């Protein structure tokens, strides 16, 4: 027996066993039970098959359009902010004229050390709806006018959520782009130089195409982060429901129905649709970056 376990044929399976066991127990089972539950009515007393009833209820739920709208707008805005700007900042940090770039990189990284709980709390109070809060007092001093009720109105609330995302993720995205930039051979820039390309042309025709893998990666994790956003809004509104659902996200919808109200069927149907969206985005990403075929070497 002992010899068998120690054989080179059996050993690799023992090595990957922990992953396989946990994968089956938590992921395969979870996905399977989400699928099953999405066709069931699940109560404490009884569980029974209801066909497409959950999906019908889902699409007639009045909260759902708000959740979809908020999640989509949030995701699109974070993409618009968290890809071009970090890329530009990385190029600037990498420029030869820059000094002490390590120091600035460190400072830009700091927000990531903060838990979402502390970050959300801090933003809640920085964007407090009083004249004296940090953001309102700056705006009133610069532009005059009245205080903004950040967490009560739809667009101001969206600005707060996107600002929070920018604060947390700009630094790490810069670091992704810096590591992408460092993998571009210097010779290519020298060749451009000889061909007489100016700074913009170098950026447009050399840097951006060479950064394509990094851009695809950052794009994917940003979509993923945008679609999965929940705790930020939970903290900004201190665990309460936001007025008129202005902070309700898709995962917030799953949480509200599933965990808070015990409507597991409905929540599972929502989760499943989101899961399908996320997985197809990832498959497209893998195809684009060519990772799928590369596992064999």
């Amino acid at each position, binding site marked *: 027996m002992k010899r068998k376990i120690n054989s*080179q044929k059996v050993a*690799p*399976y*023992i*090595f*990957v066993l*922990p*992953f*396989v066991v*946990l*994968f089956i127990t*938590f*992921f395969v089972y*979870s*996905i399977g*039970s*989400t699928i099953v539950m999405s066709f069931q009515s699940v109560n404490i007393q009884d569980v029974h098959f209801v066909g497409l009833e959950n999906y019908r209820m889902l699409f007639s739920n009045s909260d759902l359009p708000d959740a979809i709208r908020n999640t989509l707008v949030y995701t699109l805005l974070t993409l618009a902010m968290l890809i071009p700007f970090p890329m530009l900042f990385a190029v*600037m940090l990498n*420029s030869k*004229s820059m000094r*002490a770039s390590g120091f600035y990189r*460190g400072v*830009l*990284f700091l927000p*990531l*050390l*903060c*838990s*979402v*709980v*502390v970050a959300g*709390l*801090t*933003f809640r109070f*920085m964007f*407090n709806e009083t004249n*004296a*809060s*940090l953001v309102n007092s700056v705006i009133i001093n610069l532009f005059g006018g009245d205080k903004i009720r950040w967490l009560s109105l739809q667009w101001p609330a969206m600005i707060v959520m996107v600002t929070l995302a920018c604060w947390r993720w*700009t630094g*790490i995205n810069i*670091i992704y782009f810096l590591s*992408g930039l460092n993998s571009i051979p*210097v010779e290519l*820039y020298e060749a451009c130089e000889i061909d007489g390309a100016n700074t913009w042309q170098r950026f447009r025709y050399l840097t951006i195409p060479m950064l394509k893998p*990094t851009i695809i*990666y950052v794009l994917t994790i940003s979509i*993923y982060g945008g679609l999965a956003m*929940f705790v930020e809004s939970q*903290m900004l509104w201190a*665990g*309460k429901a936001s007025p008129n659902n202005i902070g309700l996200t898709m995962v917030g919808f799953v949480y509200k129905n599933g*965990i808070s109200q015990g409507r*597991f069927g409905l929540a599972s149907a929502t989760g499943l649709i989101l*899961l399908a969206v*996320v*997985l197809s985005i990832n498959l497209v990403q893998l195809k684009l*970056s*060519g990772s799928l075929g590369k*596992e064999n070497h």
Partner: protein
Amino acid sequence: MLRTHNSIRKPGERRINTVLLILFFTAMAFIMLLPFISIVLTSFKDSSLIIRNGFNLRIDASTFTLENYKYLFTGGDHEYFRWFGNSIFLTVVQTVLTLFISAWVGYGFAFYEFKGKNFIFVCVLIVMMIPFELLMLPMYREIIAMKLTNNYLGIMLPYLAHPIAIFFFRQFLQSIPKEIQDAGRIDGCSEYGIFLRLIMPIMKPAFAAMAIYIGMTSWNNFLWPMLVLTDTKMFTLPIGLSSLLGPYGNNYLLLISGSVISVVPLMILFFSAQKYFIEGMSTGSVKG
């Protein structure tokens, strides 16, 4: 010599660029630090001011007080340091176990050829792609069924073989020559002995980078522990702090000073091992 074009330009122009860049990033660094500055300043103000003013940068000697920290460190009836201890315990245990198990799995992928390897590896990638938030519901029910609520094992179990760590260790180990395995076999090591005695010592830098990544996510983890833990005695810092900001009233006295102190351990770690932090956090992008 990175970008030779600069040498063609006049030195004066370059100096202006340097000044502009430094000015730009200093301004940006200041904006990034504003939330930290405002919460630290507020932690020295009377907590009743928070309701009236939120956070701001006003410094006023007449409102300066150490009351919040006094209450936190010596005062009364709160469980903050219990949560702090829980967080440290959970972070250390989770990091050590996750690193060991993920390295164990990663070694299997990097050093062996076996049937089903590619398929299992695609499963690792799939786990990497699914946001936890989308599976929290069935996993939560599963943990209840396994009677692991209020148990740190319930928090650690689903990601004990962490896909990102497995991926990273596999990548790292692929650059190590396979001869080490043969040498171990000749010396009479078992297959597992090779991993424990020969491979693990070489993995130190990889462990350092991943320890920081796993440790940081574990220290700050919120959603899953919040579902698993129901007893306030078991709470970790993020859960405890968020419970102070409840729908039924807020405990600002403890909340603000407690939040500031909760960031301190990671700050200390960051400034002593910045290189590993940045390496650990950017590992995700090296895939493919």
